[in-house]
């Protein structure tokens, strides 16, 4: 959920341009400056990733780029969801499965 109410300790902000990104085949509204993890949190939560043999996909945890648990495929490349900012037309997949050999 995006913060709606405004408290003087957490000053109001005006979000900038918004656009659509695709995550796991679904379209989400996103605002410039948001991270992939923030877009997911704004719409629920970072999903669980399928049990597989790929290491390092334990899910969103540290939120500051240390643990690499939230890596997702962004246009085919592994990126940390917590530090990577969304861009228009991004195709993102959280459900990374090892391909059959």
């Amino acid at each position, binding site marked *: 959920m995006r913060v709606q109410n405004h408290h*003087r300790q957490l000053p109001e902000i005006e979000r*900038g341009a918004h656009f659509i990104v695709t995550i796991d085949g679904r379209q989400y509204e996103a605002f410039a400056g948001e991270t992939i993890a923030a877009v997911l949190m704004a719409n629920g939560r970072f999903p669980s990733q399928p049990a597989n043999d790929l290491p390092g996909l334990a899910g969103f945890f*540290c939120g500051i780029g240390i643990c690499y*648990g939230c890596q997702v495929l962004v246009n085919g*490349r592994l990126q940390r969801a917590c530090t990577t900012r969304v861009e228009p037309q991004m195709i993102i997949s959280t459900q990374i499965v090892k391909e059959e050999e």
Partner: protein
Amino acid sequence: MKRIAIVGAGPAGLQAAIAAAQNGVEVTLIDGNTQPGGQYYRQPPANFRPQAPSKHQEKAAALIARLDHDRINYLSQTRVLSISADGRKMWLHRGHDLWEFEATAVILATGAYDRPAAFPGWTLPGVMSVGAAQTAIKGQRVLPGKKILLAGTGPLLLAAGANLVWGGAEVAFVLEASNFTDHITSKNWSALWGQWPRLREGANYLLALRKAGAVYRTGWSVIKALGTAEEGVTGAVIAPLDGQWQPLIEKAEKVECDTICIGYGFIPETALGRLAGAAHGYQNELGGWVPQRDPFLQTSVSGLYAVGDGAGIGGAVLSELEGRLAGTAASLAQDGEHKPEFKRKLKPQIKGLEKERKFQKLYSQLFTPQPGMHSWAQEDTVICRCENVNRAAIESAVVLGAQTINEVKGLTRAGMGSCQGRLCSHLVAGQIARLTGKLHADCGLSSIRPPINPLALADVTGRGPTIEEGGES
């Protein structure tokens, strides 16, 4: 011309950069984030326009504005993947580019991250670090959940809880594991004297939480997260702890929540210093393994300095003082030597650190994690998230004779994944200590090798990025 590289643009790194530039040297400030400020001075994205910045944001902006200096070159979104044994040469990575960078001196201001605890269910979606919640709310203006439980130790719990309340979340519980008021004694209480702004800040957070109906308890923790992989967290089991942080199971309670944020103090980020071969020692009160430093904050490697939380947890104020001192000292040093006249010049700065260190010491006495936290994990509880290694596997390794983090790593792969043991080293050591009776300090440190962070092979070979394209070649 002298060129000083500073790694990390948080409070310590910012001050180091400003001080070094003022002293006439060329500065390259390297930071992994999109914007400078680190965690403490985290800025909302430039695309978010704050309507009325808070005092803290104004302070951060004023400090960051000082980076706009002829002699400061600031590199954002740049990771340091390796450092040479003399501490002067580093390998940097940004986007798809990988390059070598040489400096006459390097100041490490790498900061720290939340210390996790491993308990059943801590890998469920909805369990995250307190820092993750802080970043979401302060940096991104999103709520990590609707009904939140915070557990851990230290004042950040209160700050994060208050911010979540101000952002509109329901904070059900704030569980401080330490019965910290018990640790204030006739010997150490005087360090609190003069800390009024800090005490007032803490009281404000607590007041905001109480007003919002949050339950605040000391000497309690979460010991189990309830829920499923599909649904995520649906609740928690919480329990009072004894002085060693062993839970009193008979007094445990089941509570409802959809999000659990945990942070049992902080772990200094020391990978680069260790890779350069700087001597490190175990100091529980500073967050674990920290570099040994001279009065100028130089490590055992000449020309390599370490400052701020990455050199021992002490908070933002101490970090800034250390950054300024090391930035000045590194600029004045000649061939790695600090001449006596510089020692005189820097004396006031060194003295300024002393009062702050006194507070740091008290803080660590109040909020030091206790070994009982390693009893919360059950046999099938994951200890190493990256490589999916559970407690039973670590116990088998210990039964086979493993006595150190490295030996457990060799037998189980714990610590060999994407985070390179940053999250689990402490947890693995805790399990070894629990099983063998050894001290945490005697469980060793995991050896560190470049690259210290994951790197796409395509960036090394320069063969371009994507996985799909890889299939065609």
